């Protein structure tokens, strides 16, 4: 470490002190009646508003969550051991909000917007975005038509996600939910390189700090951190921080959405947010409902997820959106979108529990990840039979739609007949066909972690699979075939791939793909 010049130190200190204004402040105050378990009850504060930020002595902040006749219930956002009974708490006249600007991409921040990655304060101009905000009304929205490429073959082919959609990723622990979302974020690099980034926000709720550090490292190593913001409310943070972290993420997403740009937000995971919300509701003495969750846990998730939307592509109409924050009124453009990928962890595959059913009814589809598939080697462990995307084909480019049209049905047929294959009994040719094709398709749909595929590669390989061109290839060697096939196409037929990417699927293209696949398949025949 370089030597620090004492003169420099004095100069810096002098600058800090001279910029510091010694001023008296007139505040509305109250007295802390009791403090415990993260809840402070304050006497006074007659004009406090619901959801307002309260400041305690020592700089700690809290949010007003209970307005009662003779006291105000405040949830403390920080180590509440610093607050003393009898101390003074003052209003900040600010409903909980976060400062967002262009400089927030690439940073790791906490729920209140303070950076925790040690790279200094947020650079550039920032705007105040409220944590709680009404979702855009019907008039300001547009149907979802653009695809959000996740880079995962199984998803982009059979349960496609569009920009502005909410797609739930649900499964037991250790089934690869986070991996699916990280791969989606990594896949947005091609758009970032092309100059039209999809701004990603990863909200880590109640996770280990080491996990968050690991994710930050993966994103940084792959060059994805430049367009990603991580909002972290770790397991050791107070419950209130964990409840409001997704809202902070949504506020950041709305900044990009309302300024005409696409954004993607991953909530990892909402089950932990519901648990934290249950904790503070019970401490605030609100009556418990089913599974001890408070009565408004549905509203907690619905108002969060409704903020993910596709905004109409018209600046005039978009600028009149309801509840637009004052700070960004001059920057509003139409055509932006916020796609949400909430994660829910089920216990032992029970999707009929309270929180999973709630969130399933709110989102526009779900991606189910099952432990059985994961353990039998099918990774990503997506159970296509019960996964749904309510946007479906509208969120696919034409070429992908044509090619993957029959894939879901083929796989469904395969699953029906899969049991017979295990018996190895004599089957007729048609059944054998279905089974063999299905097996090879399953191999094609497998994918390594952190290895997203560009859409043209996906179309090419799925085309080969659905036309049964892989029949000669033994099942164990399908992945090898896939690699070789795509490498060859990328080297010798780049133009074909570019045409696929643009959405074209002419006979010429299909002929080229068919011939390449056939030639390569004969090599693997034994």
């Amino acid at each position, binding site marked *: 470490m370089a030597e620090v010049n004492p003169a420099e130190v004095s100069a810096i200190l002098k600058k800090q002190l001279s910029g510091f204004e010694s001023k008296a*402040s*007139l505040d509305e105050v109250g007295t802390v009646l009791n403090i415990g378990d993260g809840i402070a009850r304050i006497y006074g504060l007659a004009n406090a508003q619901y959801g307002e930020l309260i400041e305690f*002595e020592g700089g700690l902040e809290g949010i007003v969550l209970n307005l009662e*006749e003779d006291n105000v219930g405040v949830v403390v956002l920080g180590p509440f051991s610093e607050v003393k009974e009898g101390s003074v708490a003052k209003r900040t006249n600010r409903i909980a909000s976060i400062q967002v600007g262009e400089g927030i991409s690439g940073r790791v921040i906490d729920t209140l917007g*303070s950076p925790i*990655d040690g790279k200094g304060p947020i650079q550039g101009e920032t705007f105040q975005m409220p944590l709680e905000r009404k979702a855009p009304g019907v008039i300001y929205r547009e149907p979802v038509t653009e695809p959000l490429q996740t880079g995962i073959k199984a998803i982009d082919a059979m349960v496609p996600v569009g920009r502005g959609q909410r797609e739930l990723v649900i499964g037991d622990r250790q089934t690869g939910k986070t991996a699916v979302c990280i791969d989606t974020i990594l896949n947005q690099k091609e758009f970032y390189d092309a100059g039209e980034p999809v701004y990603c926000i990863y909200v880590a709720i109640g996770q280990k700090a080491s996990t968050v550090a690991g994710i*930050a490292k993966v994103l940084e190593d792959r060059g994805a951190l430049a367009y990603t913001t991580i909002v972290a409310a770790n397991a050791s943070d107070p419950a209130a921080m964990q409840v409001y972290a997704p809202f902070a993420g949504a506020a950041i997403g709305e900044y990009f959405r309302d300024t005409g740009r696409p954004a993607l937000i991953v909530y990892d995971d909402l089950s932990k947010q519901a648990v934290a919300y249950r904790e503070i509701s019970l401490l605030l003495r609100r009556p418990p409902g089913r599974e001890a969750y408070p009565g408004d846990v549905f509203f907690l998730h619905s108002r969060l997820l409704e903020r993910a939307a596709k905004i109409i592509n018209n600046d005039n109409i978009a600028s009149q959106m309801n509840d637009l924050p004052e700070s960004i009124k001059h920057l509003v453009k139409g055509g932006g979108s916020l796609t949400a990928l909430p994660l829910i962890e089920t216990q032992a595959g029970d999707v009929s529990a309270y929180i999973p059913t709630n969130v399933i009814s709110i989102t526009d589809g779900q991606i189910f990840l099952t432990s059985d598939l994961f353990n039998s080697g099918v990774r990503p462990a997506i159970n296509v039979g019960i996964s749904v995307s309510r946007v479906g084909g509208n969120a696919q480019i034409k070429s992908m739609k044509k090619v993957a049209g029959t894939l879901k049905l083929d796989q469904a047929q395969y699953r029906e007949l899969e049991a017979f294959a295990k018996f190895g009994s004599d089957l007729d040719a048609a059944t054998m066909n279905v089974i063999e094709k299905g097996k090879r398709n399953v191999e094609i749909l497998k994918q390594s972690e952190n290895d997203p595929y560009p859409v043209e590669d996906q179309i090419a390989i799925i085309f080969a699979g659905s036309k049964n061109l892989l029949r000669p290839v033994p099942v164990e060697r399908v992945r090898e075939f896939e690699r070789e096939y795509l490498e060859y196409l990328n080297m010798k037929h780049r133009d074909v791939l570019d045409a696929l990417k643009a959405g074209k699927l002419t006979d010429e293209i299909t002929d080229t793909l068919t011939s390449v696949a056939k030639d390569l398949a004969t090599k693997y025949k034994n």
Partner: protein
Amino acid sequence: MKGTRAAQRYAKAILNIAIDQKASDAVFKDMEIISKTFIASDELMDVMASPVIKNELKRNSLREIFKNSHDITLGSFDVLLENNRIYLLKYVAQQYIQQYNTLNNIQIATVTTAIPLSPSLEEKIQDKIQELTGNSATIKNIVDPTIIGGFILRIGDLQYNASVAQNLNNLKREFKSNTYISKI
């Protein structure tokens, strides 16, 4: 504050009767005496709060201690005893004082200073109060050396903090928050 709501109801009732009988000032003085007595004597508080001591005994002792009180005040003792709420008497007195002050627009301002207030300073503070709230107020001075210098003016829910301790705290906070240290 435990029992504040009940105390508020009783105080409001007493205040209303006192106003009807044009004796609110007299009752106010009684309530001030009651409040001070309770604060000074823990014993009295304990006796009133104790469930094993008979109501008769409590009644007689109260009448003896506060023998120069107005009839309304004595009547209020009886009502509280009847409803088994005599332990609230201290809070009822405090609430009465607060409600009386609100009614007559009397504000009590608490000024915390490091050294006792001088008359010239008091005048300046009165001006400040006038500027902030538009009414005058009676000033109660608390001497607290920990604020080091300046003063803290508190009127009801408003606080004007011009103390040196506050400024030093703000400075400390600015130096403490360091975004160049990684927390993950």
